[in-house]
């Protein structure tokens, strides 16, 4: 299949007070349309750096990133980001937060009624109709994250980028949102890249898991294809040998192959 997002020989070096710091090197990755990719690795391995590169929030020091055949030169609504800490604007209601995005993407072509309809649909998709007119500080962390997802989805992005979207949530809320996200991705066929440090989350959601070596100068260690049929159900999967194998493979990578590097680094 054709590569929709293509990352070619990408490296990222930061200038710090102590000199140059090589965060990423030699990243090569192709992502197919509609694919769900999880980036996993120990903290500090440059998962988020790679995501920011795809988002266009930072530019690579070497190499090139392409999306839909064009070079990624900067951030844009075609590559929507769900931020780790939801990043909703506290002075806007949930509806207004989503509307801001909808208006930006579709405002030029569509009337107000249609824009509002789109916003309402996005909020409905994450099941927050009742909280639409509330301010972010009036709702729970899980709900805020859902608004963040609604905002990203409402733009109908080519690529959905998620930076540990459920990291700050409790296990039950996280499971619920993972299930919702699976349904949404199924329905919208969104190409998704998600940064995570949760092995179960990665196996449950992804088509491929990109495992990264420890930083500094991190790169892709292994790529694991998760050949589990969809729709996936977390309860049935818990006893599925294929699921258990995938899980074991990721754990092995993280805690055997990459464990010692961290000790040296620390």
């Amino acid at each position, binding site marked *: 299949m054709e590569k929709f997002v293509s990352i070619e020989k990408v490296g990222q070096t930061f200038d710090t007070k102590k000199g140059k710091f090589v965060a990423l090197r030699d990243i090569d990755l192709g992502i197919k349309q509609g694919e769900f990719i999880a980036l996993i690795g120990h903290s500090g391995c440059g998962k988020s750096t790679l995501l920011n590169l795809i988002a266009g929030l930072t530019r690579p020091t070497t190499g090139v990133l392409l999306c839909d055949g064009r070079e990624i030169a900067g951030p844009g609504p075609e590559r929507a980001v769900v*931020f780790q800490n939801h990043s909703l604007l506290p002075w806007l209601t949930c509806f207004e937060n989503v509307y801001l995005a909808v208006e930006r993407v579709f405002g030029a072509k569509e009337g107000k009624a249609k824009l509002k309809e789109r916003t309402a649909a996005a909020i409905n998709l994450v099941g927050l109709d009742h909280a639409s007119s509330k301010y972010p500080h009036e709702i729970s962390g899980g709900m805020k994250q859902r608004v963040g997802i609604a905002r990203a989805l409402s733009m109908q992005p080519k690529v959905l980028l998620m930076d540990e979207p459920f990291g700050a949530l409790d296990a039950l809320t996280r499971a619920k949102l993972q299930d919702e996200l699976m349904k949404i991705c199924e329905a919208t066929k969104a190409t998704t890249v998600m940064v995570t440090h949760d092995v179960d989350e990665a196996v449950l959601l992804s088509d491929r898991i990109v495992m990264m070596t420890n930083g500094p100068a991190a790169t892709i260690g292994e790529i694991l294809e998760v050949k589990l049929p969809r729709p996936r159900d977390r309860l049935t999967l818990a006893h599925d040998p294929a699921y258990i194998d995938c899980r074991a493979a990721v754990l092995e990578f993280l805690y055997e192959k990459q464990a010692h590097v961290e000790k040296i680094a620390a």
Partner: protein
Amino acid sequence: MSATTMSGDFGLEQPVDRAPLGGSLAPAGESITSKPVAAVVAEPAKEQKMEKIAAQPSGVAFGEKFNTFLRAVLPPTLGMLVLIGIWYVATHKGGSIPGPVQTWDAAVTLFADPFYRNGPNDQGIGWNILSSLQRVGIGFGFAALVGIPLGFILGRSAFLSAMINPIISLLRPVSPLAWLPIGLLVFKKADPAATYTIFICSIWPMIMNTAQGVQRVPQDYLNVARVLALSEWKVVTKILFPAVLPYMLTGIRLSIGTAWLVIVAAEMLTGGVGIGFWVWDEWNNLKVEHIIIAIFVIGIVGLILEQSLILLAKKLTKESS
């Protein structure tokens, strides 16, 4: 004043079942400071609520409420009483400074007719306060008009900020009164010169706080703006302005505070109508009790300005956070 003392005594003897006193003593608290007034006004409404929620243990709850009310009112009241007491003791043997009683009597006659006009140099205290406030308002308004946009620009551009900051650092410590002669020279009139002095002293906190607020806008919000590729206008109205608003309000509060300090001195030098001029005029008339009244009036007006801006800031930031 005796009523207030009594309230303290009653409270200490019988803190329980004395709640109605809180309401009946309200006038005693009212004449002293603004904070207790708020407490007193709020009290009856809260009492009613308590009654609805729990009829049975309301006696105890009232007692507790009354206790917290006392704790809020008693120390400031006591402080004022001590101040007045020292003042009384220091002046009761006579001398050039009038005592509390004389000052009170003078204040009663003065505030009986605050808005009279007997020519340009003899006007009621109400007119004097109003014209001072008007100068502060105009000078401050212009400062906001210039300072807030300038602060935004300095906050957004590192180059301009590096260019202008040394100038601000150089001029900021200068007493605004040092600018008064230049104002007189340029405007050829006392009134705009005083307003211009207010402008000068108000503008620095406005610029600095706005610029700081712009620099401290969370990167997350700016990343949202970048991902959405919002227009510069949307970035300013939807993200920068609301995020900077609390800082701007701090700047406004500092500006108004300084302006109110400076206007008294400026008016002493320029004359005309105004509370500062009035102080100087009464000094020339050797009406010292009026000077003491003016000190209180200036203090109370300053307090009201400050408190209302704090309230406004609370209200606005509550809505936005």
